[in-house]
């Protein structure tokens, strides 16, 4: 499955396109798309230039976790640097 991600324009934070068409920092809230349906969604997302930058498609598993070739990159990108557990989203959740 696929999801759409990008960086929020104002501060660069990693965001995902959610079910309600809003951007969310929570990967688990990312809307999931079938491979064949995602291209037009990305195109529409890329037009929202005042909200985000560098939007692209990522592979996700059925439960929303990063998958595929870029799994390490997307895991780190979503959570924060592995060498600084006190920073990024990883520091906020599960404390």
């Amino acid at each position: 499955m696929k999801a759409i991600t990008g960086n929020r324009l104002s501060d660069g934070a990693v965001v995902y396109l959610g079910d309600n068409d809003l951007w969310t920092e929570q990967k688990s809230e990312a809307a999931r798309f079938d491979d064949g349906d995602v291209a037009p969604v990305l195109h529409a997302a890329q037009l929202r230039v005042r909200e985000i930058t560098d939007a692209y498609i990522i592979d996700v598993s059925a439960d929303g976790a990063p998958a595929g070739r870029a799994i390490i990159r997307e895991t780190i990108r979503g959570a924060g640097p592995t060498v600084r557990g006190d920073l990024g989203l990883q520091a906020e959740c599960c404390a």
Partner: protein
Amino acid sequence: MYRYDEFDARLVGERVAQFRGQVERRLSGELSEEQFKPLRLMNGLYLQLHAYMLRVAVPYGTLSSLQMRKLAHVARKYDKGYGHFTTRQNIQYNWPALVDVPDILDDLADVEMHAIQTSGNCIRNVTSDQFAGAAADEVEDPRIWCEVIRQWSTFHPEFTFLPRKFKIAVTASQNDRAAIRLHDIGLRIHKNDAGETGFEVIVGGGLGRTPYIGHTIREFLPKKHLLSYLEAVLRVYNLEGRRDNLYKARIKILVNAGGVEKFTDLVEAEWAAIRKSEIDLPGEEIDRIRAYFSPPDFEDLPAESAALEQKRTSDGAFARWLRVNTVVHKAPGYAIVNISLKPVGGIPGDISDVQMEAVADLAAQYSQDEIRATHEQNLVLPHVKKDDLYAVWQALTAQELATPNIRLVSDIIACPGLDYCTLANTRSIPIAQRISERFADLEQQEDIGELKIKISGCINACGHHHVGHIGILGVDKKGEEFYQITLGGSGAEDASLGEIVGRGLSSGDAVGAVEKLVDYYRENRQDNERFIDTYRRIGADPFKEALYAAA
């Protein structure tokens, strides 16, 4: 230190105001990201994995206490309480918000700092020997010429859109602490047989996917002709360098593809045509710049300090730090202090706002208000009285800035890697952390001696792995991190490129591999050989065997 004149101040001020407008227009949607990206890059602002990244220039690595305090302020107010010193003597912030960047740049401008020439296909911030003005082995202070180059290169209209980025390093010592043979242009100030000082001009060095050691295209260039000669080199590159292929756009490709003789001929012909024009600075202008770098008023001190000797004898930890982290100064009774940003298990080059303030305090009190950043991601207090070394050591120790490991196995260069960088294939920092933990024993480190480990998380080689005595390159294999070992590289005066020794290793095995290589070296070294000397004497094969056969 150099102080801005009215032109510098206006230039920087206008640039910040201009960028503030550009940010506003991006946020309003008036500028697309495509239009905005080159503009933000011209102001040192990148987009990385988690956030934006702002790279601030530290021209030739020289900072005052006031500037360091401002860097701490930026880390505290706008970022997450730390900064990261880079291999080009600059500092990066990993979390600035776009909306804050104009204010950050305004704050930096208050202390004569900026982010100009830290990105884009221009002549980048010039780098130098971190011991400049203090080193016992230098011919003269190379920063005078760095500043000349800075003024000439900043917003040089002809060289704003080069085929690719362009990096210049200057040293005035035979012992190369600025990696001049790995730069687009390396300049070494030296004396000729007649006793005159001039530049050896080295061109076409570089790392990345196609590494080269630079070629000397002129043994001796009289100093007064520096700018016209540089202009000739840049002009040839700007005209002849490839713009059709990103991977072949650096000057190293131009120099090496057509041959160094052909390149030299082109430069000399261009220089002959332009050298009589008014590019070279008049003598009085050079004198004006030189005056900013007049040596501080060193006190007339005895060469040795009784107070220091007493502490050296009574405190073993201090004695070790003295041996490893301090360097001979040109003025009697003074020493150069290296501040290690590589604590055991730490992140190479990272420094907190509190530590920055502490370093600023020490510089103000003990080092003529001067701080240097090094290309090996450490800091330096260049002018410390030997009488004060104990107090400085104690203060650094309290801030975890006194790890006695300069030039040793845990003094590792590592790029940010996949923990931060959007270009990286693998992480680099965790490998550096594991190696420094494995070799945490300080006595063992000192016994191993000089050993330069350099780690890059992708082929762009920001971690200089090609020139590590032991180099480590991260490669992604189907979503798994692997690490390739190279041996025999050097970025110093004996510059050489490392050789790949075999198949890639997992992250756990990479750390063990370093241990095997070090063990093999210790068993086979002769006399005072460093790791690199033993490697060069016996060659790669025995090391390869030690690495792979025993497994």
